[in-house]
């Protein structure tokens, strides 16, 4: 065991995956020599050479599109979009190809690739550096969308993503890249993709979150001692672990979904719909969402309005509990 941040855990996952499997290559803008603007890939080029770890031109379509070709031809590329806001020029490749190669070729080709991208606000960043674009990736069939919230999961999910036979979009909650440490195994391990984690068991209400928001939810719990909430860390946004969610709702009858993505047509809507479909008559109150507003996430001097903090979570939770069944 060793004490690691999420950033270090991801770095270790990449390192151990590359060590074990020669077909893993890692690249993107500033990913090679410098080790990434967040230093997530630090040390890898030195260890594995410029062939397997390299810097690219500023060309997201090329980064994603070349990974398609590499996957077809025997490699397992792990590419980085420098920020999720800059993944959009590569979005055509993701939707048109990454998500579809298996189906298009009826299984002849499949793409064991990972697209990493730091995402989310709360880091006082420039425009396009704070986006939460889960919906854009979760809505597309053929993709998996994974988001860790702890160092343990970060390493295990990343290793699972690299070993997955399907393409995985891996969003990294950059706000908590270095926020805290956790003791995690030094040896390689996987955390299963497609399974949510019960971060805390409880009976009164279910709270669903992922990424940096899981911690905020946990902090909020300290402000509502009297509420016995079950916290689900979704971990895989798509394909979603509906079963775990439904089981929890059947127990608690109430649900609050917390995410930073824009509210309308956002991820919470899908969760609510699945709950409606499978546990409607168990609901004791209307499912609630606490999300980013439907406005462009503000620059730092206005960001505090947008960012969801524990106080707000506690407030919504109390309101939700106050609704009578």
């Amino acid at each position, binding site marked *: 065991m060793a004490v690691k941040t999420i950033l270090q855990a991801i770095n270790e996952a990449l390192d151990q995956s590359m060590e074990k499997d020669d077909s893993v290559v890692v690249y993107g803008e500033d990913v090679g020599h410098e080790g990434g603007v967040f230093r997530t890939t630090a040390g890898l080029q030195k260890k594995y050479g410029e062939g397997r770890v390299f810097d690219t031109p500023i060309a997201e*379509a090329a980064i994603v*599109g070349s990974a398609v070709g*590499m996957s*077809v*031809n*025997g490699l397992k590329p792990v590419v980085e979009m420098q920020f999720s806001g800059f993944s959009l020029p590569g979005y*055509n490749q993701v939707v048109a190809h990454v998500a579809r190669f298996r189906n*298009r070729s*009826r299984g002849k080709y499949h793409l064991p690739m990972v697209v990493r991208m730091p995402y989310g606000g709360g880091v006082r960043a420039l425009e396009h550096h704070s986006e939460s674009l889960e919906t854009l990736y979760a809505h597309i069939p053929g993709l998996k969308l994974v988001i860790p919230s702890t160092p343990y999961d970060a390493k295990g999910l990343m290793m699972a993503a690299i070993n997955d036979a399907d393409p995985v979009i891996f969003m990294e909650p950059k706000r908590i890249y270095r926020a805290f440490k956790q003791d995690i195994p030094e040896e390689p391990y996987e955390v299963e993709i497609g399974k949510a984690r019960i971060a805390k068991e409880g009976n009164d209400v279910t709270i669903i979150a992922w990424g940096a928001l899981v911690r905020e939810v946990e902090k909020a719990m300290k402000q509502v001692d009297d509420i016995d909430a079950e916290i689900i860390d979704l971990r895989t946004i798509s394909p979603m672990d509906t079963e775990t969610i439904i089981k929890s709702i059947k127990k608690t009858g109430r649900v609050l979904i917390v995410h930073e993505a824009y509210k309308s047509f956002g991820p919470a809507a899908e969760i609510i719909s699945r709950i409606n479909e499978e546990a409607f008559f168990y609901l004791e109150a209307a499912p609630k969402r606490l999300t980013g507003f439907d406005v462009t996430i503000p620059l730092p001097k206005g960001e505090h309005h947008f960012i969801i903090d524990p106080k707000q979570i506690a407030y919504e939770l109390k309101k939700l509990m106050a609704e009578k069944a």
Partner: protein
Amino acid sequence: MLFKDFDPLKEEMLQILDQKGNIVNDKLVPKIKKATLMKMYKTMVLGRIADDKAVQFQRQGRMLTYAPNHGQEAAQLGSIAAMDDNDWLVLAFRELNAMLYKGVTLEQSYLYWYGNEMGAKYDEDVKVLPINVPIGSQINHAAGIAYASKLNKTGEVALAFIGDGGTSHGEFHEGMSFAAAYDLPMIVVIQNNHYAISTPRKKVIKSKTLAQKAIAYGIPGIQVDGNDPLAMYLAVEKARERAANGDGPTLIEAVTYRMGPHTTSDNPKLYREDKEVQEWAKKDPLIRFKKYLIDKKYWSNKKDEELQETSKKEVLDAFKKVEKSGLVDLEDIFKYTYEKLTPNLEKQMNAYKKYLDEVGE
């Protein structure tokens, strides 16, 4: 040498076999094995018939859409014939001839246009990517394939096709830039057929030649008579040597013409003159190639008649099978989304099956 001699800034087009089928550049005639030449020609004949028939089937309401490549055969066959078996073919969508040469069956090809994904499941050993509809994006795939080849020292080269219109797309630019950055073994052949659907190349692309776009990537470019199979072969052969030597990608502009409509939904009379089409009819690659082979005593009119017959039969047989292929199974539209069917997809499929059962469809 070739790429110096035909530096795209000189605006000289490489031609070896003129439109009458005469050798106009003796020194440049590439050494091509007889078997290869004959495979090229036979594919061309089959491809031509298959192409024309597809359009006809579509007119009869038996085929869905089809994107004809009549007129562009030499651009494709000259290219693919110069590649190794071990190389990759990365398609746009108008490359029936290159596909057939590389081992995609006619039945598969028809099946695809017939509206069935199984038509893109080429045989295991056929190193061809499925038809790529989003313009330009295939160049990035070719670059990735070439990267893997270079990293693993497999010696494979990726040959990609794109249209004249496609060269304006950002995806083309990024793929070329990427491949150039790492000296990747990639060859891009632009089939400049003078139109992107209804839009003339000259109207929306201001570079003097498309070959000149190579300069932006610091790589060689060459403009070639795309209806001359020998010139195409030579250019790609030399480009392949470069690629194999680790010298990086090459951009080849094949000057050709689409004799038919863009697809069967298109009416070219809306945007081009018959006269222009007639001019290009004289440059038919098939006619000149045949003459060359006959002159070389590799071929005869009599053999050609036989070939026409057998090819026609092959085409009709293939289409017959396709017409019998029926609809796609429900399971098939679900089961290739992920390696394993997700619980969500299983639920969706089963609900739908239940509906079919209950409603009795």
